[in-house]
Structures are given as C-alpha cells and as structure tokens.
C-alpha cells in the first residue's frame, strides 16, 4: 500500500491478471485508490457489436501461455516509467459477451496528468506486446482473426 509519509514519487504496486473470469473496471479502480492518490484513471476495453461497419454476433479471445508473465512485465514497466502510485491491468480471454470488458487498465497517481498518460501508455503497450488474439464471428456467419488479413 502507498505510504502517507512518502512525499516523493514511488510506484509501489503493479498487478496484472489474465483470466477467463468477468472483469469489472470499478473493482480494479477501487483496488488502486488510496489516501495519497489524487487521481485514478480507468480504461475499459469493451466488446462491441460491430467492427468496420459489420455486425458482430460473438467474440472470443485466445491467450498464449506467456500472456500472464508478459502482462506483469508491462505493468511493472509502466509503474517505473511514470510518476504513478499504482498500476493494475487485466485481460479476459475465452468467449466474452457483447458489452463486457475484455481489457481493464487502471492507474492511480498523485496528479491527473501522470495518471492519464500512464493509463494510455499501458493500453498501447498491452496491444503491442501481449500475445492475445481476437476472433470475431459476424452475423452473416463469416468470421475473422482480427489484424490478420
């Protein structure tokens, strides 16, 4: 937990989770909040019912066995790179219903600027570095692995 008597920047918590369970952004936001944090920025990457103008019927994510350890590494890197207090990130895999979160990223910091930039950086790094794939089935019965023409 953050120490109240520490006036200097110290990123003390970085947590990461790859799971097939439901993930809810409010739960993760509550976990990073503390009495020394003046800002909590949250991001929820949600499953949409459409992609490039086509109606999506169902969606599933696949995770490589190294996804958990790589996500931990990314969370630690973000905590080290920004003036933040706490970083928490979770990626769900398996089938995910429309409207539920696939990715949750939350950051707490003393000030909003660091929290905003760290959270944006975290999401970008997750997309770039974590071996997770998205498979979507359209309402016309066709399907695709996203980003793989």
């Amino acid at each position, binding site marked *: 937990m953050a120490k109240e008597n520490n006036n200097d920047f110290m990123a003390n918590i970085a947590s990461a989770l790859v799971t097939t369970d439901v993930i809810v952004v409010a739960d993760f936001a509550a976990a990073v909040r503390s009495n020394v944090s003046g800002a909590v920025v949250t991001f929820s*990457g949600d499953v949409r019912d459409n992609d490039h103008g086509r109606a999506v019927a169902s969606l599933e*994510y*696949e995770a*490589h*066995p*190294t996804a958990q350890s790589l996500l931990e590494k990314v969370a630690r890197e973000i905590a080290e790179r920004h003036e933040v207090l706490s970083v928490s990130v979770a*990626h769900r895999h398996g089938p995910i219903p429309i409207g539920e979160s*696939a*990715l949750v990223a939350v950051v707490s910091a003393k000030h909003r600027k660091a929290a905003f930039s760290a959270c944006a950086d975290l*999401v970008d790094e*997750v*997309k*770039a*570095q*974590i*071996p*997770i*794939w*998205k*498979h979507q089935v359209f309402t016309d019965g066709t399907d695709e*692995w*996203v*980003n*793989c*023409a």
Partner: protein
Amino acid sequence: MAVTLRFYAAARKATGTSEMTLEPSVALHLLDQAVAAHPKLLGVLGQCSFLLNEVALHDFDTQVPDGSTLDVLPPFAGG
C-alpha cells in the same frame, strides 16, 4: 528426436491444427516443412512472430534442438 511447432489463432486456422511434430532442424527448414504440409500457412507466416522455447526468435538459421517448442504467433490483437 522431435520438436513441436505450435500454431495460434489465424496460424492454427491456416494449418487446421494446433501442433506439428518434426525432426530437429534449423527454424527456417521447420517452417518450410510446415508450409509444405499446410500451404495456407504461407499467407499468414509473413506477419507472424516466433518464440523458441518462449524466447523471441529472430534468426531463422537457429538450430531448434530436440525437445524444443517453436511457436508461430500471428499479429497480436488484444485490448
């Protein structure tokens, strides 16, 4: 003596299988054999990254020793 090639996501769709077992060889030769067996793999292979025993592989002349796993990873699409 065997090595395992593992195919994920679009690479698995292209091969129709999640794994292939081959004799140890250099990575390039293993991938050539995979394409020969599953020609559709060629369409995605150029976009893929590779892990040899969970470490990024960049040199395709690398010998893949007995008992190793070579993973074929299509472009990531998390988030």
